[in-house]
């Protein structure tokens, strides 16, 4: 059975590499340094999950989310935010994000979120 494929989109190397470190044991991981790159990845191949940062240069997380949703309407998306802001969280959920995590995250939080969302996707 092929391993689920996860895309990480964050302009900060530290965050990208941290998520890769947590996820690569169990999942196939691709990384994108910005919104445009993430959209290109999603257009090329299907992903079972996307971790998406909000504040990014050029194309921000909200714009990326809109574009990605057109390509992959059912792909679970987890938003990463550096401080808890209910307003932004609500906004992203309205735009079709499935969950949001605030930084700094830890291994268990990330793995739990992935597990839950992948399980949901299977049920669907």
């Amino acid at each position, binding site marked *: 059975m092929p391993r689920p494929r996860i895309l990480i989109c964050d*302009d*900060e*190397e*530290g*965050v990208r*590499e*941290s*998520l890769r*470190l*947590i996820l690569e044991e169990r999942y196939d991981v691709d990384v994108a340094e910005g919104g445009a790159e993430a959209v290109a990845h999603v257009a090329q191949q299907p992903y079972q999950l996307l971790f998406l*940062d*909000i*504040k*990014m*240069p*050029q194309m921000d997380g909200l714009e990326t989310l809109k574009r990605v949703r057109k390509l992959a309407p059912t792909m679970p998306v987890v938003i*990463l*935010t*550096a*401080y808890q*802001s209910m307003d*932004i969280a609500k906004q992203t959920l309205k735009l079709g994000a499935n969950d949001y995590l*605030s*930084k*700094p*995250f*830890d*291994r268990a939080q990330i793995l739990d979120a992935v597990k839950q969302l992948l399980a949901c996707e299977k049920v669907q």
Partner: protein
Amino acid sequence: MMLHPYQWSLSLTALTSGALGLFMLWQNPKAIINVTWCAMNVAVAMWAIGTCVGGFTFNERTAILWWNIAAYGALLIPICYAHVANALVGRRGSEQWMVMGGYLLALLSVSSLVTLQLPKSVSAKSVFVFYPDADPTYDLFVGIFWIYALYAHAVLVRHFRTQLVAKQKQIALVLVATLLGFVGMTPAFLLVHGKSTALWTMHLLPLYTGIIAYAIVRHQLMDITIVLRKSIVYSALVALITATYLIFVLLSERLLQGALGFYGWTASLPVAFVIALGFIPIRNRIQALVDRYFFKGTQAMLAAENERMRQELERAERMKRVSILATGLAHEIKNPLSAIRTFVAYLPERYHDAAFREKFTRIVGNEVERINTIVQQLLHFAKPALLKLQPTDVNQLLSDTLAFLTNDCLKRRVEVTTDLRANHAPIPADANQLRQVFLNLILNSLDAMEHGGRLHVTSRGHTGHLEIAIADNGCGIPADQLAHIFEPFYTTKDTGVGLGLAIVQGIIERHGGKIALTSRPGQGTTATITLPARAPTTVGAGGPATPPPATAPTNST
């Protein structure tokens, strides 16, 4: 006819209370406090006069009529007092349901009093020739009286803490005055049941008016200060002039008429002349005296109150700044913390993995350095270095900074033009800190011109100050973002932590200067700095620059 001592107290209360109430209404019929207070005082007058006449009249029928007036007045007193209390602490609208209910009750009672006859009968009690007899309806009225009196007191006490100091003094005086009034009235109710205890407390009633009058004069209980001040001044003036005139005329009549055969009116002419000459100085003197003895405390109190409010505002502003700083700081540090936390968590199990160790060293090292930079900048912002003022050639400093950035400008395809016409002698400035200002502003401009553009730097000398403008034709800043641009941790750029402009503003302000940013989206931004040609009066590290009023940063990750 000799008046009984109780009649003296009651009629004095009725007269002073009624007169003061009507006077206050006349002074300001639009102020709710004046209207309600007048209504309350008229009610007090009704009760006092009803008791005064009803208690000592000659026939029973008249006594019953006057005692009915007294009963109605007594019912209205606490209801109006509750209204006064609400007006005094600023309760309005739906909070007034208790008062409105009271007025409705009073309205219904008018017909009841006529039909029920309250009291129905009177008899001789204690010193009174006629006094109401005990009756369940009368007791009900007394019950309502106390419910409203306690409610009004509770309103004043409950809102006491939240009021300003000046208002607290007013409330305290109203509480004392009304408490005395109610204590003075209590034996009157008890006597209905034949208990003639402490009837002497009725003599406390005139004190009620006295204390309220004191509160009006000394603590501006109601809004009549100017009228009152003028009234006191001119009353005193008229009294003084009349007395002087009379004394002179009388003396002159006696002395001059006896000795020289003059008539009084001849002597009064020079006296009137002297008075006319002295009118203005005497009035000013009296006004100064009145201000000193009646209003000095009040003005000092208002000044203290203003000072307290200013300090509260400053504290609130400081707290807001701290909140903006804390939010920005948390935002900037959480990103590197995510990486550090994850890599440290994996360290024990991946320690022997060379690739992991390489990544750990690079990423954790970078992130730690990033946090260090943020903290350094924050420290610089919060506790800036002392200014070392030296005669500085600002034109030279601008040219040097531009020369330093030549490569960056070339790389970004930015054309630089200068028009440095500030012909001032060197101004007192900290060259290093000023260089940082120019560097930050020019780098911001370069960042705004991603696809090339034009940077125009000018300087102009004016009398007493120097003006420097750094203008670009870059992407510009939308108006909503411009309002927050000097706030710490606020950034419109993809890189940087948003402390640059906050630091720039701090440096300029410590030089005694000003900085303003104007911008049009799509057309460019101009930063205009004004620096004084003379050293600022206070030179020091100072605190962080004051950001304009703003909410938390709107950028987010």
